[in-house]
């Protein structure tokens, strides 16, 4: 199978756009409603961008495309993200 990694590997790319570490944040999956740390999502990197899927139901939680001078981020599969101050 295509190997997936943990949401931990998103930390580098997300740190360029968020002030705090988002991988430690919990998010709610828009597919199954499960709430879990972004770090526990399944991340597929062998793709045109990074794809984070819910470890519970496989729903695409987030995508991140590195467009050189821009980063295009989708959090469309997360109904909410809890960020610590």
């Amino acid at each position: 199978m295509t190997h997936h990694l943990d949401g931990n590997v998103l930390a580098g790319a997300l740190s360029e756009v968020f002030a705090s570490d988002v991988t430690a944040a919990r998010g709610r999956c828009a597919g199954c409603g499960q709430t879990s740390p972004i770090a526990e999502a399944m991340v597929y990197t062998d793709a045109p961008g990074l794809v984070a899927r819910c470890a519970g139901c496989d729903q695409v939680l987030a995508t991140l495309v590195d467009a050189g001078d821009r980063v295009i981020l989708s959090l469309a599969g997360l109904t909410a993200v809890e960020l610590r101050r």
Partner: protein
Amino acid sequence: MLSAGPTPRVDTADWELVLRDETGADHRWSWDELLALGVEDVTVDIHCVTHWSRLDMSWRGVSLDKVFEDVESEHEFVMAHSYGGYTTNIPLEDLLDGKAWIAIEADGGPLDPEHGGPARLLVPHLYFWKSAKWLRGLTMMPDNDPGFWEQYGYHLYGDPWKEERYW
């Protein structure tokens, strides 16, 4: 280069291509029926969006002209669907006139699952993310709706000569 989830494992005995036309009617081909349309040798250059190109790569596949031969459509766009849920949008004219194939072999052997087997789209004049792996269906669309990566940042068309990578 195009996977966005677990690699689907599809046996050719279970494989099926479904082409949904603008009336919603489905045209279906089993693996053997697809091959019976005629498999041809194709040698083309491919261009990956991550800056590499591979020249003179040898493939074998079925021309999409054969697949669309008996399908009447006023719709000008196609959404390709993959086993595993991935989609990509392509104008119909980019799939016809000898410009695109359903590839079943590369470099002299069957396409393995990691490379999109048993069958993938091969649209060499567009960036390679448009050449959907694990092809299972083609749906005619009236509008150029974005596919998976096109929703998430990639270019709606993807011409490598114009470097149409991102939005």
